[in-house]
């Protein structure tokens, strides 16, 4: 028997890419897709990189494909929005070496700002979409996606969801297949999308989708299993489903008839018609948008879907027990206990910067990263968060709307990785359009939220090799911004002074607050902060930034958890009575 290992959906996808003979992979980190690239690192045969953003990543993969090798790009669902530009036109161009975009949706929004459904983008861009339903399939579908990509001359999307990406199941290993080297051929009718060429290619794209829809009923995975699988059982109820939702049906109603779709764009219409004709009651069970349901209804087939099940969040087996089987579930009510939302870590440099902004009553146009957590109490600094890079440009919009005096009490806050992702363009715009305003780059030397990935300013590649590190200070200076300052994120005196001074300035200024993320590997924290109860005046100033290592005792003094404290010293600086000291651990 082949070697079998427990693997996350994301690990299985990386393994599938390896076995499929992928040569080039590019990605920007984004939960729940990050571990795919992190797992590609182990394969020397694959060049894998972190690109500054998803648009760049898809273009890197496109170039690799046109040159004749198998390539891929990975991203979370909102990353595909950034990469839409190359996606829509690569659909026209097609591929030379197979090309697959792995896109991870997040039903339930565990780590995302919206709940968009990538299948809709697949339809809009006329790019075929595959969706696996466990780790075993994740590996097999990934491999098959490259076969389909080359056979139909199209980029492919492999859609996953958080539950699949972050669930583990056993996966069997197979050998890597080295693809035959495809020589490059100049072909401007296919590779240069000027109107005259694109008009012709649009017809090709439409024809391709029609052919795939016609062929879909007979598509077989390398293992011989049908990609779109009919499991006939009891014909009273028939489900059409895809992805993780399939597993809930198998859990609750293993005897029901199921049409499990592996290809979710285009749909195998003939198969759907045949299946619908054989069951008494047809139910479409798909998370998020009614993508399958609307197309089934457009065929004139009667079915149920979103009238039973929500468009929001994840599905479950209990949902089927209640809505289809009509069971009254004997479930106790959940205890109403204090919520425990995610928070900034003890020793986090963002907390220090936010404590100063909070003191100065400054509003922040926020961005995407751990520092978005500055929106909630007790820091309550971040007022807006839209998407990657939006802090700087939305601050600019506020200034153009209400004038420079209005935004003196505002700043834009953006992390180092997010700044390089899409913040740079927005800063250019401020300079070009004669803006006033303060931008704070929270430089913690990593991509923090997604679990510490390198980027263009860290000096290390995805493969761990040393490389040139872009200097954020020089980058800002080079745009013509005169007032760029680097300040230690924990020096709250210097921070306050700099922010107060820059508030009055009638031009763009950038403050780069520097201190590495406390969770970055290789750091040692030899000290801890210790309260001195005799000196404590019980004013609570140290507790204001909400460090989780600090708790108030019943007598009003404080305790500091020495297993959590990293001795960042913020509480010590905030204490006017010298009632907190640093000690060796």
């Amino acid at each position: 028997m082949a070697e079998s290992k427990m693997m996350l959906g994301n690990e299985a996808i990386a393994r599938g890419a390896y076995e499929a003979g992928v040569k080039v992979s590019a990605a920007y980190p984004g939960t729940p897709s990050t571990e795919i690239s992190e797992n590609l690192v182990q394969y020397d045969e694959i060049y894998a990189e972190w690109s500054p953003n998803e648009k760049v990543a898809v273009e890197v993969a496109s170039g690799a494909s046109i040159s004749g090798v198998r390539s891929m790009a990975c991203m979370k669902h909102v990353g595909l929005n950034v990469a839409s530009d190359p996606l829509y036109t690569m659909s026209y161009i097609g591929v030379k070496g197979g090309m697959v975009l792995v896109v991870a949706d997040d039903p339930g929004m565990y780590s995302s700002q919206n709940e968009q459904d990538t299948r809709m983008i697949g339809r809009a861009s006329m790019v075929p979409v595959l969706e696996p339903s466990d780790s075993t399939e994740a590996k097999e579908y990934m491999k098959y996606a490259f076969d389909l990509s080359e056979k139909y001359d199209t980029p492919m999307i492999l859609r996953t969801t958080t539950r699949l990406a972050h669930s583990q199941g056993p996966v069997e290993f197979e050998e890597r297949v080295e693809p035959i080297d495809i020589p490059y051929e100049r072909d401007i009718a296919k590779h240069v999308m000027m109107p005259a060429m694109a008009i012709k290619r649009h017809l090709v794209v439409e024809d391709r989708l029609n052919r795939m829809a016609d062929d879909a009923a007979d598509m077989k995975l390398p293992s011989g299993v049908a990609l779109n699988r009919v499991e006939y059982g009891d014909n009273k109820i028939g489900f059409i489903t895809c992805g993780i939702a399939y597993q809930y049906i198998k859990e609750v109603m293993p005897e029901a008839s199921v049409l499990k779709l592996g290809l979710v764009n285009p749909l195998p219409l003939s198969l759907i018609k045949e299946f619908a004709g054989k069951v008494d009651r047809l139910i479409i069970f798909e998370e998020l948008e009614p993508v399958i349901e609307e197309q089934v209804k457009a065929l004139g087939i009667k079915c149920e879907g979103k009238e039973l099940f929500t468009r929001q969040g994840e599905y479950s087996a209990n949902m089927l027990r209640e809505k289809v089987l009509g069971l009254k579930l004997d479930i106790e009510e959940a205890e109403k206990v204090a919520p425990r939302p995610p928070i900034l870590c003890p020793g986090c440099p963002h907390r220090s910067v936010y404590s100063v902004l909070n003191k100065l009553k400054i509003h922040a146009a926020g961005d995407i990263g751990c520092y978005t957590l500055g929106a909630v109490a007790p820091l309550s600094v971040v007022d807006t968060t839209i998407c990657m890079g939006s802090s700087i440009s939305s601050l600019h919009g506020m200034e153009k709307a209400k004038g420079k005096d209005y935004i003196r009490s505002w700043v834009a806050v953006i992390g180092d990785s997010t700044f390089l992702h899409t913040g740079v363009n927005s800063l250019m715009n401020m300079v070009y359009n004669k803006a006033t305003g303060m931008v704070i780059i929270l430089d913690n030397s990593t991509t923090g939220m997604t679990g510490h990935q390198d980027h263009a300013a860290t000096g290390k590649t995805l493969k761990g090799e040393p490389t040139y590190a872009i200097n954020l200070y020089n980058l800002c200076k080079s745009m013509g911004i005169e007032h760029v300052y680097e300040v230690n994120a924990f020096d709250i005196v210097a921070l306050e002074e700099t922010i107060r001074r820059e508030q009055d300035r009638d031009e763009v200024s950038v403050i780069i607050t520097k201190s590495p993320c406390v969770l970055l590997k290789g750091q040692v924290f030899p000290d801890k902060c210790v309260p001195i109860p005799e000196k404590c005046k019980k004013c609570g100033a140290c507790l204001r930034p909400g460090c989780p290592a600090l708790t108030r005792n019943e007598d009003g003094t404080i305790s500091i958890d020495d297993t959590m404290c990293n001795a960042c010293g913020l509480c010590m600086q905030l204490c006017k009575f010298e009632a907190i000291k640093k000690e060796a651990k």
Partner: protein
Amino acid sequence: MATTNIMIVGVGGQGTLLTSRILGKLALAAGYDVKISEVHGMSQRGGSVVTYVRYGDKVAEPIVEEGQADVLIAFERLEALRYLHFVKKDGTVIVNDQRMDPISVVTGQATYPEGIIETLKSRRKTMVVDAMSIAKSIGSPKSFNVVVLGASAKSMDYTKDQWIEVIKNTVPPKTIDKNLEAFEAGYNL
């Protein structure tokens, strides 16, 4: 064999992922079909975290739903209470007797409930483990989660040797001895 449903809950950073992976490998080595579901990303930043492990002859769904858990392993008291309704009426709760205040309690917006252990005991078969003290006494406070795992071992159907083998293969090589000591301490409770 019918599917066994295990939930591991705690506070981000307490090692729920490592624990679920040990349980997953254990089930796979014993020849079962297994699925594990984890939480990554934003929820890991000191928030409430939950992972699911399901094993049996054939496992479809990767999560454990309300009223379905056979065993709830909780690394923190409040988190045990938060997920108590997931446990079957005849299921077992193994709870680490540790209190960690959520930020809402620190800032005074909410209170940390009194008498959690009593509530747990009144509603489910409950085993309380003072894992942090035990782990500190063997000089390895970070292994407290393996102490809890050791305490939970008898609620599952594996031999002690199977547990030891998998712990050896899962934890970082330098920490094998301390983790085995921690497991032993929990197992003998």
